[in-house]
């Protein structure tokens, strides 16, 4: 009797990941076709509309770029932690924390000059995200508390903190009883770049490029990778694991927090509990698809931005925007499935003890 097993390739197939990504994309599109046909829509018309709305004009590009900003920063946050073998599942909460701090500064800084106010808001956003991540960071470094769960739990805590503020002390007295924070003043809005795009696009690209350089060109980045691949090696090399774990997780939180600040200052009228719209979780998928590489993060974030913008645009055609959510998940599953074959080869083996034990 023979069976099929996966055997690790001696070398990872060259170009395997971009190819896997492409296969994942095609797979997701096919699933989308089935979903659309089932619900009685014309897939070609829907996909045409999605591409048109996300990439078909400078205006469409500007909206897609804006959308890619929080996705890319959240993806980078996950990738930064991931480069050391740590999981920051808390980007969602850190984005909210960043947005909350930025909104708080916007309240305090009434009457400040716009560049000063925006800078202060973004710095506060970084601090907010970093603060929320600092608990899990210290707990992980000092007593080995699993950072996956602590960061995950803090997502829910941050969301409720924001709800509490919006329903309570931050509620706009002129909102007629609705739990809404007041509108941001014009001075708190990030200046525009072209069409709808704002300066957050440049900031995000800058941060991603900066980390890419630091990770690949500096001793600090090298130490990070050593510590990530083997704690024992790192200790022999005199790298302080505890300090590295703490700084990397706090840095990761700060990057996610920045995404929240930019989202508030660039895209939103006011802070709402929906300000993150799942960017934190999508960021984990972005980072995974990019194999934790900053350059890959930017590319995948752009594509996910397009899928999300396209998904929102088809609501006018009577299609649920959840189609884009479904597509994103299937892109990942498709890519994971295809990616396995760049690392593993399928072999046929005899299913008796001697050969399977070899």
């Amino acid at each position, binding site marked *: 009797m023979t069976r099929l*097993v*996966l*055997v*690790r390739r001696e070398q990872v197939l060259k170009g395997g990941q971009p190819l896997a990504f492409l296969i994942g994309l095609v797979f997701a599109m096919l699933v989308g076709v089935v*979903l659309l046909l089932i*619900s009685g829509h014309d897939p070609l018309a829907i996909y045409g509309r999605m591409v048109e709305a996300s990439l078909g004009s400078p205006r469409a590009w500007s909206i897609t770029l804006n959308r890619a900003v929080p996705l890319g920063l959240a993806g980078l946050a996950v990738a930064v932690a991931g480069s050391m073998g740590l*999981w920051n*599942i808390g980007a969602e909460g850190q984005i909210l924390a960043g947005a909350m701090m930025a909104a708080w500064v916007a309240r305090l800084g009434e009457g400040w000059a716009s560049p000063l106010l925006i800078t202060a808001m973004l710095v506060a956003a970084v601090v907010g995200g970093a603060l929320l991540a600092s*608990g899990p960071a210290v*707990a992980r470094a000092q*007593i*080995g*508390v*699993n950072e*996956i*769960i*602590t960061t*995950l*739990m*803090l*997502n*829910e*805590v941050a*969301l*409720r*903190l924001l*709800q*509490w503020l919006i*329903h*309570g002390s931050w509620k706009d007295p002129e909102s007629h009883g609705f739990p809404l924070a007041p509108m941001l003043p014009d001075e708190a809005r990030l200046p525009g770049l072209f069409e709808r795009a704002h300066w957050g696009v440049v900031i995000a690209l800058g941060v991603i490029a900066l980390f890419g350089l630091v990770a690949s060109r500096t001793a600090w980045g090298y130490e990070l990778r050593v510590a990530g691949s083997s704690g024992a090696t790192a200790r022999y090399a005199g790298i302080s694991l505890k300090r590295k774990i703490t700084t990397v997780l706090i840095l990761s939180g700060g990057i996610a927090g920045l995404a929240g600040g930019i989202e508030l200052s660039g895209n939103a009228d006011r802070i709402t509990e929906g300000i993150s719209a*799942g960017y934190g*979780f*999508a960021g*984990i*998928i972005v980072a*995974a698809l990019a194999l934790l590489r900053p350059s890959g993060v930017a590319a995948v974030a752009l594509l996910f931005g397009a899928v999300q913008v396209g998904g929102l645009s088809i609501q006018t055609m009577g299609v*649920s925007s*959840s*189609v884009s*959510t*479904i597509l*994103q*998940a*299937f892109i*990942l*599953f498709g890519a*994971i*499935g295809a990616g*396995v074959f760049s690392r*593993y080869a399928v072999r046929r083996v005899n299913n008796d003890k001697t050969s*399977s034990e070899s």
Partner: protein
Amino acid sequence: MTEASMIGLLSATVSFGALLYLAALGELVTEKSGILNLGVEGMMAIGAVTGFMVALETNNPWIAFLAAIVATAVFALLHGLFTVILGAEQVVSGLSLTILGVGLAAFLGKGAVGRPPGAVLAPVDWGPLSDIPWVGTIFFSQSPVVYFAVLAGVAVSLLLTHTSVGLALRGAGESASTVDAAGYSVTAIRLAAVAFGGAMAGASGAYLTLSLTPQWAEGLTAGRGWIAVALVIFGAWRPGRAAVGAVLFGGLLALKTRLQTFGVDLSPILLSMLPYLLTIAVLIVISIRARNRPSAAPAALGQTYRREER
């Protein structure tokens, strides 16, 4: 505080406790086998929408409940396919399952928003037992799913500690190669555990739309899947302790909507942070204690097993 409102609070505590317990029990078994599934929130959404939609079609709550369990078990196997067979990162796959489940549920349930339920699981009438003051309302007038949750908890507890299947399951999560050498298929055990986790999350979701809040709306699960994940840690991977945690967290959910009636001047939103903060606190205590004794978590949790790389 009136007697009626106190009875109402305790009765709701049992209801919410069962809701959380079902999903947590499934996740507990999954984690015991060595697989972390962060897709609980998405699986609950799938169970909730399936239960509601099937009830609309068939007008039979039991067929709807069963359909939700089966559909969610199959859905969970997607996580099994990617993590157990293809060896993908469990955290990433599980979160994708949540994203997919929530999105798919919203897509499938679009036509059901705002519609009255096709059928509900009516509370069980235990005859004279239901008439006992306090106890009758709190324990003997619940949805059948509550008793199902209690039975499932006892069954899982016995299975894990007293059967060879349970031993093999725990073995898969502690030391997969040992279980493999003993002649069990780690792949089969883990796939079965993932499917069971899905089935229980599906039962929990269906309980939501067939009993607790018999309606469908996007985002109906409202983060309760994450509480279920938290409960597994809170309960130190033990069905009994998880049950205690479920009642505690269920009580917090029940209290949340009733704070005002009890004249307590605390924001219900702040109260709803407690399960997550408590879980973090428990995790810290577990980690401090783990320095001196073995950790409560399955040793191989989150690790892919490949026999050819043993």
